[in-house]
C-alpha cells in the first residue's frame, strides 16, 4: 500500500473508490469526498488478467472481478466486503456442453436491477450472456441469447472479431424495468430485449458498418461502448468503430453525433462516459483510427472531448494531460464518471497511467503511474 502524491485528508466519512482492472491484477484507489488525495492499494490477483472489476451500486460492498490467469480457464472472483476478501465463483460462466463453445474469458460485468439484489450479468468472449442470481457464485447462460438460432448470424463465428476475441459488452439494464436490457457486441451490434432475455432484436439502424459489403446491414456492426444517458434511460450513446451515435427511444434510428468532432481528430475511439445527472453531457476519448489504426492518441496528443448538448458540439479537454509525445490510448471499459457534483472523470491508459478530473474534465492530473496496461476503470461511492 502506498500513498500517492496529494494532500493528506482527514479521515473520510464517505469514500470515492476506483477499481482499476489491469493486464496483471487489480488495484484500488481511494479518496475522500474532496477527491484531492488518492491512496493506492494492491495488487490483488497479481499476474491475473482482470478484464473488468465492478462494485455493486446497490450496496457498494459486493465486488466482482472477471479473471483469466495465464493458460488456466476463466473465472470470476467475488467479494462481500469491498475487496478485503475474495471467493471464487463455484460455477463461472460456461457454455452448455451441447453447444460446442468454450468461454475464453468474461469480459464485462453488470449489476442487475435494484429490485433484484444478487442478480448480475456477464458478457463473455466469444459472445455469450450469463446471469447469476446469487451474487456471482453460480452462473447460467441466458438461453434466449446463447441458444438463439440467429446468434451465429448476428455475431459471426467464434474465431471472428477482434484479435483477442469477439466480445459481448455494455450490458445495460433499464432502471425502470428489469426485463428491458440492451447489449453491445464486437462484432454483432446493439441488441435489445424486453422480456428478460428470452427474445432479442437488433437495434442498429443509422449506424454505419463501412467494413462490410453492405454498409447499412441489420446487424454485424462494431459498437465499442454503449451507455444509457444519465437520468434519461430512453437515450443511449454509442462509441462505434464507425463514429459516435445517439439514440432517443422509442425511436430506433441512431443519429450520427460524431460529425462535429474536429477533422484532425476524427470520431473513432473506444470508451464513452456519461454524466449521471445530465443526459446531454458525455465524454469520449478519440484515438487514431486512420490507415492501419495505430490506436494511439491522434498525433501523440491525448485529449478527452466533452459534449454538453447531446453530441451536437464538442469541446477538447486536455489541461493537465501531456501536450505531445504521448502515444497511449484508453480501452473501452477504461473511462468512467462518478456520480458526484461536480462529476469526476477517470481514465486508465494502455501505458498504465490513471488520470482523473474532479471538475468534469476541465483539468486532469495523474493519479497513478507505472501500473500494468489498464483494461477497466470503475468508480464507486460509499
Amino acid at each position, binding site marked *: 500500500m502506498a500513498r500517492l502524491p496529494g494532500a493528506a485528508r482527514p479521515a473520510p466519512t464517505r469514500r470515492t473508490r476506483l477499481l482499476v482492472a489491469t493486464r496483471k491484477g487489480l488495484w484500488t484507489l481511494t479518496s475522500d469526498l474532496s477527491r484531492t488525495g488518492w491512496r493506492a492499494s494492491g495488487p490483488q490477483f497479481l499476474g491475473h488478467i482482470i478484464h473488468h472489476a465492478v462494485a455493486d451500486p446497490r450496496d457498494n460492498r459486493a465486488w466482482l472481478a472477471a479473471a483469466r*490467469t*495465464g*493458460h*488456466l*480457464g476463466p*473465472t470470476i472472483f467475488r467479494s462481500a466486503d469491498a475487496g478485503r476478501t475474495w471467493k*471464487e*465463483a*463455484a460455477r*463461472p460462466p*460456461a*457454455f*452448455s*456442453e451441447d453447444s*460446442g*463453445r*468454450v*468461454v475464453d474469458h468474461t469480459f464485462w460485468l453488470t449489476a442487475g436491477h435494484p429490485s433484484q439484489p444478487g442478480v448480475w450479468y456477464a458478457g463473455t468472449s466469444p459472445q455469450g450472456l450469463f446471469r447469476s442470481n446469487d451474487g456471482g457464485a453460480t452462473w447460467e447462460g441466458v438461453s434466449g441469447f446463447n441458444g438463439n438460432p440467429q446468434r451465429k448470424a448476428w455475431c459471426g463465428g467464434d474465431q471472428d472479431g477482434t484479435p483477442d476475441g469477439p466480445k459481448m459488452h455494455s450490458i445495460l439494464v433499464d432502471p425502470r424495468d428489469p426485463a428491458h436490457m440492451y447489449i453491445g457486441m464486437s462484432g454483432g451490434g446493439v441488441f435489445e430485449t424486453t422480456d428478460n432475455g428470452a427474445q432479442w432484436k437488433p437495434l442498429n439502424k443509422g449506424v454505419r458498418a463501412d467494413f462490410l459489403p453492405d454498409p447499412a446491414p441489420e446487424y454485424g456492426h462494431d459498437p465499442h461502448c454503449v451507455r444509457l444517458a444519465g437520468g434519461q434511460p430512453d437515450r443511449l450513446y454509442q462509441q462505434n468503430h464507425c463514429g459516435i451515435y445517439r439514440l432517443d427511444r422509442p425511436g430506433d434510428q441512431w443519429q450520427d453525433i460524431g460529425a462535429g468532432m474536429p477533422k484532425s481528430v476524427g470520431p473513432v475511439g473506444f470508451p464513452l462516459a456519461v454524466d449521471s445527472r445530465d443526459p446531454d453531457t458525455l465524454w469520449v476519448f478519440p484515438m487514431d483510427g486512420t490507415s492501419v489504426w495505430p490506436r494511439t492518441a491522434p498525433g501523440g496528443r491525448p485529449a478527452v472531448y466533452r459534449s454538453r448538448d447531446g453530441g451536437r458540439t464538442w469541446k477538447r479537454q486536455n489541461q493537465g494531460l501531456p501536450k505531445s509525445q504521448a502515444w497511449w490510448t484508453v480501452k473501452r471499459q477504461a473511462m468512467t464518471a462518478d456520480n458526484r457534483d461536480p462529476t469526476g472523470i477517470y481514465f486508465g491508459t494502455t501505458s498504465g497511467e490513471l488520470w482523473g478530473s474532479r471538475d468534469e474534465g476541465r483539468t486532469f492530473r495523474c493519479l497513478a503511474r507505472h501500473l500494468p496496461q489498464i483494461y477497466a476503470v470503475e468508480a464507486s461511492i460509499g
Partner: protein
Amino acid sequence: MRVRIPSPLRSYTGSAEVGVAVPVLAPELPPTVSGVLASLNLNYPGIRFRIVDEQGKVRPHIKLFVGSDATRDLGAPIPSGATLMIVAALSGG
C-alpha cells in the same frame, strides 16, 4: 492417489502435491484421469474448470502426465501407485 499441482493452481490447494481419494469400483476398473479430477474438484471447488473446458477438453497449454506418460484423454486409466501430474505452461507475457 497423489496429484502434483502446478504453481498457478496452488492458490486452490496450498501445496505442490495433494492426495485425493478416488473410489475404485473394481480391481479391473482403475481410476481414470477424469475421476481423479472430479475428486480433486470436490476437495478444491473450481479447480477442474481451470484445467478442463466446458466441452470436456484439456485446455491448451496445459499438460497432464500419468506417471511419465503425457495424455489429453480424460478417460485414460491411472495404474495403482502412479501419480497424476498437472503442468500449466507459463508462456506468454
